[in-house]
């Protein structure tokens, strides 16, 4: 299986990666680019620990080949917030204790980030439905849902203030 070059953009930075056709995006991110925020929890797209954002959609990066994302823009949890300040979602997860072991957290936050782009003012039920593809084994989800609702309120308030 010959390797091929692919150009992708990860967290705003263009990257040239050399991958076998069968290489999964999660492996390219973690092993070649050392972006280890996205985690592997199942490799069957059930757990969501590997969730990233590709061209404005949430994607489980364990079930997409690197070859399929050539030319696309990828955002991982490392691309959210700034070096000085965390994203409101990250702040809210801390404040509402929306994480314990932290393993699902990067996928949760990346998915929640897209969810709030799709629906900036979700109901609790919409948050639960929108997050149902991401498993958490520690929290029972209560505080994750609280954190996402709080972050939505916070983001909407700062948007209003800016307008």
């Amino acid at each position, binding site marked *: 299986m010959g390797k091929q070059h692919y150009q992708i953009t990860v967290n705003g930075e263009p990257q040239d990666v050399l991958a076998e056709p069968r290489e999964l995006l999660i492996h390219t991110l973690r092993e070649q680019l050392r972006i*280890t925020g996205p985690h592997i929890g199942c490799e069957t797209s059930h757990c969501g620990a590997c969730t990233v954002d590709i061209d404005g959609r949430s994607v489980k990066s364990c079930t997409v080949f690197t070859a399929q994302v050539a030319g696309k823009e990828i955002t991982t949890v490392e691309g959210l917030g700034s070096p000085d300040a965390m994203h409101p979602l990250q702040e809210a997860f801390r404040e509402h204790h929306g994480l314990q072991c*932290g393993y699902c957290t990067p996928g949760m936050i990346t998915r929640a980030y897209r969810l709030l782009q799709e629906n900036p003012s979700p109901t609790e039920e919409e948050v639960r439905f929108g997050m149902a593809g991401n498993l958490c084994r520690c929290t029972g989800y209560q505080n994750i849902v609280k954190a996402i609702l709080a972050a939505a309120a916070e983001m909407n308030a700062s948007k209003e203030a800016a307008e």
Partner: protein
Amino acid sequence: MNTPNTYIGGHVERVEDARFLRGAGRYIDDVTREGMLHACVVRSAVAHGRLVSIDAEEALAMPGVHAVLTAADVTGEIPTIPFRRPNPKIGPYAQPVIARERVRYFGEPVALVLADSPELAEDAAELVLPEIEPLPAVVTRDAALAAEPLLFPGTTEDNLAAVFTAGKGDAEAAFAGAALVVGDSFSTQRQTALPLETRGLLAEWDADAQHLTVHGAAKLPFFNRRAMAKMMDLPETSVDYVEHDVGGGFGARGEFYPEDFLVALAARITGRPVKWVEDRREHFAAIAHSREAEAQVELALDASGRILGLRGEMFMNVGAYVRPNGMTPVRNCAQFMSGPYRVPNIALQATAYVANKTPAGTFRGPGRYEGSFFIERLLDMAAARLGLDRRTIRQVNLLTNAEMPYPLAQIRPSDGSRAETSCDSGEYSEAFHRCLQAFDWEEKEKLDGRLIDGRYHGIAVSCFIEGGASGPAETARIQVAGDGGVEVYVGSSAIGQGLETVMAQIAADTLGLPMECIRIYHGSTTYLAEGWGSYGSRATVMGGNAVREAALALLARFRALAARRLGVGEAEVSVVGGQAVGPDGAVLDLADLAAEGLAGEAKFLNSDATYTNGTAAVHVAVDPETGRVEVLDYVVCDEVGRIVNALTLHGQVTGAAVQGFGSVFGEELPYDDDGALLVGTLADYLVPLATDYPRVRCLSLESYPSPTNPLGAKGAGEGGIIPVGGAVANAVASALRAFGVAPNHLPLSPARVWALLNPPD
């Protein structure tokens, strides 16, 4: 500024979150080494058979494949994995680290492939061909008890790994004089803890120094180091277990598994770092299972509902071998079935039998979840027979603080310090009342048993105790660094529970310093000469008190050094807020004396368990058409002695409760008649999703500190899972009372609930 700190009990957000939230956590798969090889385990696809040969020729011929290790690569006897709770009978059932002549479960390691990448290793593993002559598989209890066939012929005479009794008083007399005896058969299904991060290890062998380092430690690194050193024939000091961030434990992760030895052996043989990361499919067959229990138990009561006695027998399928803590759920189920209730006479027998399935270990609330389900069902059945309110029958039997310490049943054969144990403190009816008040029992009771919009509503209440503070000791060392920062080393390990935060709170309060000064180091054998770890709800009590004592020792040393520096008597120096003040007002900071070896050490010894007690209440709706049960509300209240961090406590209790719902409704590890595991992915094993259980509320009390430790804390968090089976099953029974169903067998999957309503003719 010299006001006392109140981090303990205050609203303190977690210090470990900053790295997790940015994706900067460092889990075992994030750890790499130059030139490392990747391992893939070849596992038996046959549940029981004779291992005739292993053909690795084709695999070895693949470019990038370096070695295929089998039992032939182990010099001498194949080492077996040691027990955490040894007892005379279980010796022959220990698990060899690799199969040599016989395989005994689907998934048992038979070879290890080493290659340049994980993908290559996996490709090569598919080409390794073990020849196995199948033997009849022992899957059921009947086959195991009939010894058809024996799993260990020539070494044992039956398939019974152990028989424990839990005894107290005179059960026979109690039953003879009872106004009512209720009894039935119950069962809980085989499942597993399922941490979201699978296991993983990275081993490094330094041939010059003859030193082995194993990365990927969790739970109990010091025990595992001892086990590894013995197997490798090395002094303990030549082995280190190193902990990185850990993606959940729940009892299963961190025990000594076959892969611990195999990955280390591979590093030693090849001289290169070797990494192995379990994939989810092998996780289901390789990590410890738990909870496969059947019981036939009876309760004797007087006419007012007071419990007179408890007796019966339980059978636990512990899988093919006895793993390090394989006996814990078995003996716990017997010892703790009486729960928070006054049960003066007990005669229970718990039999652990082996079968051709994955070996069992612990899962959160081991044995306690099972036992609680059994007795809570019996209590509701007794209440119905006596015409008593289900609250009353619990109230009259809940322990009072005046009865403390209250002895639980004795376990025989004795398996250590907990063979005899007593509840430590608490007025158990207080959590009971607070729970029911928050739940609004009176209001919800109006719906109990009623059909509303096509669904039957039911409520139930269930009470529990949670043992904590596993002994015998924990260690800590605290030293002041040159920059004035305080380094805390503790033998406890972090498995995602917020250990760094809780230890920093305790250290900061004891030292009178801001938490920001405290740096916590934990979980690796490199930090302390001896230590224990995190299991059995012990870290806050055992590690926390060790940190407290080490901090007090450091303060004493600070005072002594300061007195010497100032040329005054120790009594003349006051120590407040990290500063020593002399009689003339001269002030010394911790940093000023750091160079003089400002440190404190402690070994906190305690073999007395703590017992958190609590009550859970649940409201369900059952759809008779589909058998689906919805949890409409769930409230749990626990009394934990002392709350160190309410945020993490409630987080863990809530998470445990939801894990309990997963246990009750969906998670199951079924096998076919030949002993093949029928679960391979998370599509087969139904853990709770964000949409499943939106209503869980918890509250905590701290009115009865534990007398066992200076902090007064009790192990907590784990308890959230214990009462769930009993509470939910009783609520379903109450909802469906018109049909007289007895939900005595878990899981209460839609199919099973439907079958209760539609029994075969």
